[in-house]
């Protein structure tokens, strides 16, 4: 009877434990519900996260592969160095790009992207296309670009007109380029044309006849000579003499120079040093020919220069000589030894002067220009922006067409037959165009000249190769036949091209079709008019109201007069007169030709592969 001995105490203890159990149960119930909910929702969330991460890595891998193929394709297209396989690291991933030749004109680029073991592969097949890459509104060779007042290079339909020049760009008031403007720097020492040993002093201009000194050299490459460097010191303070480059005349300097610059006396000290002499207009030297560097000094017994020479004629293909006056007739006297000099070939340091550039400007030196974007330069003055020196000077770019391309076109034209004599207005039988008439022609080689004027039309059904000159004016038209479709056609002249007032150069009528007019004439580079060059002493002279064409001269100047409107222009040198405009059309960048060799590589197919 123990349990009822003190019933009150039993009851109260029961009640206490009952109360505790209810609370514990409630807490446990909530705990289990919460746990079930947390675990139940955590696992799908984690799974989702894993899926999303895998998806992101897979996409990264894909884009890494894409980047790899793009890089390899760009390098092949632009003829840049490409290792095989090329391995690149991008963010956290890597891509290995393998390039295999399927045939001489076809390549496979396979990129395998790998981001966190997620592999995705992209295969790009490219073909050596029959196209040329006219990627600039104006691409200019070593001769450089000269722009007159208000001359403009722009693009159609919102596009910009970019300019690339291997030579200097010189503008004028209102000269405008709406796109990016790049001027390459090319200057390399010709190590075969130098003498750097200093053993003996040659006193220049102290006593007669040791006044004008000359040193001969033979350049190893056919390139412009833009700088020479002389190992000189001075005594007293002589005035700055001229340094001339002359051709050779029977083992001595000629009495006329091909280039001239000043040796600044202020740069010379009383101890020997290499003093640079840069030529504002680099002169084209021919490899293997002999040239002379001549100092044209004055005479002063207490103020003169000292040019160092070696003692044993160490330079095999050069000698040192002196004479009282280089430009008068008479013989030179040879010294023992070669005067110390260095030569630098290339078009020199890139400069942009007095141009309004809407995009980025990139050159070694930019002066007096207004830049909309960034001015990438090493030195500059008078600009609205300071130089951003973060980028190296741009390297020269090759012309979009090679000599082999042009030769192939000549061959293609000749294969279609030869017309002996002139064509066009007063052409020979079979190649005459009646007044306001139309003649379809090509592929054909014409041994004479081609003249199309006064409403006449020449329709190209193939490549036309003119051995003489091409002259189109007064509503004369040269166009591609409609059968070209979106392809472009080609007309080549060994002589000059003159497109006079209202000359029409047209494509087939389909978008993307252009007429490419090529002149291969050499040496017509402006200046004094010479026979055998077009007006303005140019290789191609393009006058008023000209419409729609791509012009190309590889070795001469293109001269553009008022209001000429072009799709694109490529020349060794380009002169834009006042108010001229080049209106670049983006389609020109991938101009395709139905004949001739490829100017670049085009994509045949793209595929994502396993």
């Amino acid at each position: 009877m123990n349990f009822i001995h003190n019933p009150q105490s039993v009851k109260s203890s029961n009640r206490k434990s009952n109360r505790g159990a209810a609370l514990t149960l409630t807490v446990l119930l909530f705990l289990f519900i919460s746990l079930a909910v947390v675990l139940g929702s955590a696992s799908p969330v984690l799974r989702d996260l894993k899926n999303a991460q895998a998806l992101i890595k897979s996409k990264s891998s894909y884009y890494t592969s894409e980047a790899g193929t793009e890089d390899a394709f760009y390098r092949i297209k632009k003829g840049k160095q490409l290792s095989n396989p090329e391995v690149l690291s991008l963010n956290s991933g890597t891509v290995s790009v393998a390039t295999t030749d399927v045939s001489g004109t076809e390549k496979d680029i396979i990129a395998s992207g790998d981001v966190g073991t997620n592999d995705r592969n992209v295969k790009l097949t490219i073909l050596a296309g029959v196209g040329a890459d006219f990627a600039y509104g104006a691409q200019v060779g070593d001769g450089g670009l000269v722009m007159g007042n208000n001359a403009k290079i722009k693009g159609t339909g919102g596009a910009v007109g970019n300019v690339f020049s291997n030579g200097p760009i010189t503008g004028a008031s209102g000269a405008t380029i709406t796109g990016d403007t790049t001027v390459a720097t090319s200057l390399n020492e010709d190590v075969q044309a130098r003498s750097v040993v200093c053993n003996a002093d040659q006193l220049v201009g102290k006593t007669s006849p040791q006044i004008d000194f000359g040193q001969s050299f033979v350049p190893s490459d056919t390139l412009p000579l833009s700088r020479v460097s002389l190992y000189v010191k001075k005594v007293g303070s002589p005035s700055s003499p001229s340094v001339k480059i002359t051709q050779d005349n029977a083992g001595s300097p000629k009495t006329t120079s091909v280039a001239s610059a000043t040796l600044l006396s202020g740069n010379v000290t009383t101890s020997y040093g290499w003093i640079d002499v840069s030529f504002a207009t680099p002169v084209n030297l021919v490899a293997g020919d002999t040239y002379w560097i001549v100092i044209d000094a004055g005479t002063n017994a207490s103020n003169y220069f000292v040019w160092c020479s070696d003692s044993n004629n160490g330079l095999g293909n050069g000698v040192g000589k002196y004479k009282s006056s280089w430009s008068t007739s008479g013989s030179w006297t040879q010294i023992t030894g070669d005067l110390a000099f260095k030569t630098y070939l290339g078009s020199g340091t890139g400069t942009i002067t007095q141009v309004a550039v809407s995009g980025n400007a990139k050159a070694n030196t930019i002066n007096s220009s207004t830049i909309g974007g960034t001015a990438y330069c090493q030195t500059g003055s008078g600009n609205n922006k300071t130089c951003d020196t973060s980028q190296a000077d741009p390297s020269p770019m090759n012309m979009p067409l090679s000599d082999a391309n042009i030769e192939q076109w000549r061959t293609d034209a000749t294969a279609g037959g030869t017309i002996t004599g002139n064509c066009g207005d007063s052409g020979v039988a079979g190649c005459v165009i009646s007044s306001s008439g139309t003649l379809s022609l090509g592929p054909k080689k014409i041994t004479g000249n081609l003249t199309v004027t006064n409403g006449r039309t020449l329709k190209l059904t193939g490549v036309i190769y003119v051995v003489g000159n091409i002259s189109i004016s007064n509503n004369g038209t040269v166009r591609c036949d409609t059968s070209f479709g979106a392809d472009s056609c080609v007309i080549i002249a060994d002589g000059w091209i003159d497109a006079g007032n209202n000359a029409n150069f047209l494509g087939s009528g389909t978008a993307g079709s252009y007429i490419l007019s090529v002149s291969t004439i050499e040496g017509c580079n402006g200046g004094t008019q010479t026979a055998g060059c077009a007006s303005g002493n140019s290789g191609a002279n393009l006058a008023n109201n000209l419409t729609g064409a791509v012009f190309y001269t590889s070795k001469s100047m293109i001269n553009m007069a008022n209001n000429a409107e072009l799709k694109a222009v490529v020349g060794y040198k380009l002169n834009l007169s006042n108010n001229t405009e080049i209106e670049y059309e983006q389609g020109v960048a991938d101009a395709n030709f139905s004949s001739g060799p490829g100017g670049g590589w085009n994509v045949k197919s793209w595929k994502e592969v396993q």
Partner: protein
Amino acid sequence: MPSLSSIRSRGFTLVEMIVYSAILGVVAVLATNATLAMTRAFTDLRISRDLNSSATALFERITRDVRGAYDVDAAQSTFDTNPGRLMLSTKDSAGTSTTIEFYVTGNRVNIREGGADQGSIMTTSTSVSSFIVRQLSNTNTKAIKVEAIISATRGGITKTRNFYTTVVLRGTY
């Protein structure tokens, strides 16, 4: 038995009963509510997952096939309206020309490869209420924009979301 009567008299009073019942009621309601809310949230989560995985499968497949295609067969495709249809001209792994077609049937997007039906590329718990294909093109490039409104239903809860993508055809240059 005075002791027994004294125990009985010490049982739960009416007030105690009412208070206990009330507390129990409140706790039960709270617990049920919490459980229901959690179940709903869980269902919601699963629907979102259904939607996402279905859309991912659909869009990844379309993206991959559009990229690889070299042309769009405009005559066989239905652009700009619902239900849309997309007929792509493409090449298989061996390089032979074939077609890939995306079309809507039974509220799901199905795929046909070379004319042979390959079934749906969406999960069974989802349906597409709008599938619109648009074509963008210029002289050089074609692109396809796909818009899909996808719904999923589970335990009486329905969720709808819009998905978009635009892909450029890479098979042609």
